[in-house]
């Protein structure tokens, strides 16, 4: 899953990355830094796995106050 700072939420890490890339001469006007979590889940089908991972995000992996998440599933 991809976990990102929510739109409108200050992302100091992204700002630092943007400023550093700009300092190297790259024309980057915005950078947001999130997290990628790869999981292997035992589940009957992809929909079940998706639902399970959604609960994991809500309970631990993302903080809904400041982060949004996107789940991408596929066979192992």
């Amino acid at each position: 899953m991809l976990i990102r700072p929510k739109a409108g939420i200050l992302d100091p890490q992204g700002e630092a990355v943007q400023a550093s890339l700009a300092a190297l001469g790259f024309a980057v006007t915005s950078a947001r830094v999130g997290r990628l979590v790869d999981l292997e889940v035992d589940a009957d089908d992809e929909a079940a796995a998706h639902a399970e991972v959604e609960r994991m995000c809500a309970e631990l992996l993302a903080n809904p106050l400041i982060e949004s998440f996107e789940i991408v599933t596929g066979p192992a």
Partner: protein
Amino acid sequence: MTELRPRIAVITFPGSNDDVDARLALEQLGAEVVPVWHATTELAADLGGIVLPGGFSYGDYLRCGAIARVAPVMGAVRAFAADGGPVLGICNGFQILCEAGLLPGVLRANRQLEFLCADVTVVVESDGTPFTAALTPGEELVIPIKHGEGNWVTDPALHAELVERGQVVLRYAEDVNGSLDRVAGVANEEGNVLGLMPHPEHAVDPLLGPTGGVPLLQGLVAAAHERLAGAGVA
């Protein structure tokens, strides 16, 4: 009457590093400290208070406090808080209480992207908690901060409710880290759980600098005493 020292637990997580200072400060202020390891699942019945100290529990993996939130000891901490017991979270302890849902909001990286270490002035905004009961709103305390993630935020509607209910207990006199509304410390609705980024346990001895931490910790010790007296223990 012999001196009664209320028992206060200081919980050590892997990566906690202010647990010893918290213990020394509380002992200096009249408490008997019970060191508790995070893997403990039950707390002594005669505890009067709990402190979650500062540090970097579980290496700040995932988000500050996110892993500690599910530590074995947290079930007992929740039960103690639900029973009205005074719980104080300092710095990483504040982050843990927010992640655990015992306190509102979340602590993000400081706006200036720097680890901050300084003596700061905080203003007491509410005397509706045991920690601030002996203080007067408007009173100023000088207490050190040392954190990279102290930039507290919540959604605007909840923030307005918190202010209305007096749950914003401490504010920085000036903006230090980008924290919404200069919030330095918030309490739960009942007032028995308080989290703050400044370190009262580092501000108890005039030899080492400001002593603004004394009244807050005294408030905890007094509340612990009261709880035990109420339970017929002390």
